[in-house]
């Protein structure tokens, strides 16, 4: 299963750096695959992906799928933005509890027919910028 993609005709305002380890995440995301690191020793996923398991400190890591759906734990709309994000403001960001038990923070894509609200179901999407992908969530039906 791949995530829906939203094309954005701009470059990312503050693109993430890639490492030998994280490029696996970002290249997969660019193809709509939504995954993170999972510890082979204790079986726990973590997000953002990490080469060392924060729970048991094992370095035996594999890539496993994340849930594409979750619930909005909280959100805000940022009006006072850093200089590089000024052109995009106001924009919404939030905290999502994925259905498989991972909490993350990301940009939110707003929908006119589904105003943002704490507790509402959301789906993860890929924001496909000209220079690469970012992940985001938007209200689900």
């Amino acid at each position, binding site marked *: 299963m791949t995530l829906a993609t939203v094309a954005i005709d701009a470059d990312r305002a*503050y693109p993430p750096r890639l490492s030998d380890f*994280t490029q696996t995440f970002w290249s997969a995301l660019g193809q709509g695959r939504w995954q993170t690191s999972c510890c082979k020793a204790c079986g726990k996923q973590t997000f953002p992906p990490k080469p060392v398991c924060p729970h048991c400190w094992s370095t035996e890591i594999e890539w496993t799928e994340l849930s594409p759906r979750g619930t909005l734990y*909280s959100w*805000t709309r940022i*009006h*006072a933005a850093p200089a590089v994000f*000024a052109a995009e403001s106001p924009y919404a960001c939030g905290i999502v509890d994925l259905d498989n038990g991972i909490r993350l*923070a990301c940009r939110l894509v707003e929908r006119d027919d589904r105003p943002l609200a704490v507790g509402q179901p959301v789906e993860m999407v890929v924001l496909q910028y000209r220079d690469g992908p970012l992940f985001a969530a938007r209200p689900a039906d």
Partner: protein
Amino acid sequence: MSRNVAIIGASAIPVGRHQTADDAALQTLEHEIMTRLVVEAVRDAGVDKQDIQSLVFTLPRPYTRQKYFHTFLMGQLRLSCRGNVMEVMGNGMTAALAFDQACNDIMLGRSNVSLALGINMESAVSAAEHMMSSMRTTGDVDFHTSAGFTPIAWYAMDAMRYMHEHGATREQLGSVAVKNRHHASLNPLAQYRKPITLEEVVGQRPIVEPLGLYDVPPRGDGAACLVLASEDVAKELGRPYVLVRGRGFCHDGTHQISDVPNDMIAFTSARQAAATAYEQAGLSPADIDVAELYAPCTIVEVLVSEALGLVPSGQGARAAFEGETRLGGRIPISTSGGLTSRGHPAYVTSLYNYVELAEQLRGRAGERQVANARFGIATGELGNYNAALIHVLEAKP
């Protein structure tokens, strides 16, 4: 070995816009402010220059041209020390760490008199430019900053969650700003002193929803100096002093957000650090007479007041709205005016909180004096209260 630490002197400049633009003909120089403050605080303490054997400085902002500011100042004052001279940095916790380390130097016997001091100059740099740096301090610079998160955006999400869970209203949160502005109107060190109404607070433009301009801290410059001493020294001076009764620290092992879902607005590090500090002091929340909290936004004051047990969980916003945390109320909080009105020169903010408690607990707070104030509590934090450093203080008249 057990040595008690006392606050015996304090000085500060009013928080405000002190930093000059790069093209101004006359510049405000940080060391000129700082040397005057040291002299003032040491006079207030009644000790001699040679008694000072340790100095712990807060790291200046990168906009301060003089690098190695701390050792530069040693030269400006011809201070020679055998205890410690250092600069500390811990984001929002910076000034609390400076105070804590100065306490350590006394407890370890490295000095009998220590200074905790620093200056934070940033107001000539625009908020949008300053945020280019501050956005990299909260969250993961690759996975969060890329989405546009800013430091106070995390507090805004606390507010949204708190309103959802407890039915708190914008008006209840806004009442914290009104209350703190009233306190600031009585504090000569405060940045904004003109009283404001709840209608004005709620009517301000949004900054990070649901928080508006008056729910978030203004930007400003500040500098302060605390003189700490062993209690033996404090007693010999024969003047009122403030005893450090308890200290607690906790880092919850997360940075900004836990990927294992938790109760984000419980501020568990503050709860744990407070429990440690109360236990060390042999006190309970009910004993506290005045609290100076590191609370950059209205919502943060509400959540910290709950985490410290000063008000019941889920009742902080209501308590503020009903006046419990106002001067004259059951438990006055942020009598200085707090970060929203006294001001928030971030790296020295906690120094101002200790200055306020030093004034309150020595009975020198004038119009904003909390009657018979005996016990005070101060907090420092970083992230979204992922870590907290808490001190419980006692008046020794």
